[in-house]
């Protein structure tokens, strides 16, 4: 497992080729996703549990997040709506009182049991999220690669595509204020690089063709989306112009 994990992070071609030829490539890939997912899920779950251990802490965390976002919106807006600001300020305290009342309503089992379930849920849900994202990405890339003349099998692509989840182990540090989002971006770019290398190994492509296989459909979809937005905007202008 650790060999596969390190091999993925260092873009080790021998490890990737070995996985491509393995009959249980998918199982090994899924185990890597499970390993990374459980690691990240545990870190995030524990972090959330600490922040919301008591109703007072949960409200404090929510209030801090709200204040931060509210200030950001007011500061970035050129002409903030004063009526809206007054309305939010007047209703903020009663809203958090409601939140507190909801958190302290009686439940059949004590609150810590529910919190334990929430922690477990975060732990087991993270690998599923990574798996869903990876499968969707791999489906699109495999289809494009086959259209571009690739000869790799679906199982090989799923197995090696799973390696792209390895850098997301950095998401376990997402709770650190300030650097969490930066680490997320680093993990995403690193994962994309692994995906290109994996596509090249599975379909025996050069780097350029592998990059094209990874980016072709997302780029086409983005351009189509942009075109649709332009057409919609033009249509709206024409309608309102009349």
């Amino acid at each position, binding site marked *: 497992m650790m060999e596969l994990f390190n091999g993925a992070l260092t873009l080790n071609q021998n490890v990737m080729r070995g996985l491509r030829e393995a009959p249980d490539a998918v199982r090994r890939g899924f185990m890597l996703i499970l390993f990374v997912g459980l690691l990240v899920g545990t870190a995030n779950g524990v972090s959330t549990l600490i922040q919301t251990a008591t109703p007072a802490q949960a409200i404090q965390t929510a209030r801090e997040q709200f204040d931060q976002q509210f200030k950001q919106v007011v500061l970035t807006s050129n002409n903030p709506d004063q009526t809206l600001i007054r309305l939010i300020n007047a209703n903020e305290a009663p809203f958090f009182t409601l939140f507190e009342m909801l958190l302290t309503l009686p439940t059949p089992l004590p609150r810590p049991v529910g919190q334990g379930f929430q922690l477990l849920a975060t732990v087991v849900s993270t690998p599923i999220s990574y*798996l869903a994202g990876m499968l969707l990405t791999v489906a699109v890339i495999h289809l494009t690669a086959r259209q571009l003349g690739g000869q790799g099998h679906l199982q090989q692509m799923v197995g090696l595509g799973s390696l792209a989840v390895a850098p997301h182990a950095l998401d376990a540090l997402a709770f650190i204020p300030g650097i969490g989002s930066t680490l997320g971006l680093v993990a995403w770019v690193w994962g994309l690089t692994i995906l290109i290398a994996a596509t090249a190994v599975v379909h025996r492509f050069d780097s350029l063709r592998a990059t094209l296989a990874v980016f072709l459909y997302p780029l086409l979809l983005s351009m189509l989306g942009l075109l649709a937005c332009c057409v919609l905007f033009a249509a709206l202008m024409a309608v309102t112009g009349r």
Partner: protein
Amino acid sequence: MAALMTLLRLGLGGLFLDQRAFQAQRDAPGGVARGAALVTLVSLLVTVAALLGNLGESLTQPDPRLVSATIHQSLKAMPWYAETTASLPTFAADFEQVFTRLNSFSLTPSPQSSLLGVVTAPFLALLGWLLTGTVVHGLARAFGGSARFGQTLACTAVASGASLLGLVQIVPYAEMLPGTLFLASALLALFGTYVAVREAHGLSPWRSFWAVTLGPLLLTLLLLVLYCCFAFMLVSALRSVGGGSGR
């Protein structure tokens, strides 16, 4: 017990897209019966897991009526409610109407509905497996496949192993990001069906791809056409009513 373990191993083979599991099913004499047992077992396990998870959720949540009453009272006590009611006299009645409607709508599945799912899910899973198998078999044969109907059914049953991901629902509040479990299971099942067709019929990758995706694509197209026809008829009806009253 040994038969149960064999079935679980077969399901795991489907989950991990292990082509040896698909080949074994293709060549097994009682492949269809074993496939039916696998589909039933997987759906039963998943729905029981979901039932236990929902039970855990309901035991750690306050009474929904109490939640609703608390929200209702608190919202009405907030400054925005008093201001809006003063400026808009009909708002109070509209608020009550909307709140009553929202109250009857719940996203959290109840243990009762999960219990019903335990009874119905195996039948629905078997029906879905038979329908998918029939459509896929017809298309695979049209694309030059050589397997018998029983072999197609036996192999596509292995793809139901993808649903084993749903066992995660035994943990209450699992699936923090809604839809991810469905997406992962659906994609894995699609991949599994593709491998099943390829292994059963010995088709090329592209032919296997079309044999698996053409059915759902045609169904989507048909639904889209029906939706457009319905929308067109509705607009025409509304126009004729509007034109009639205008005259």
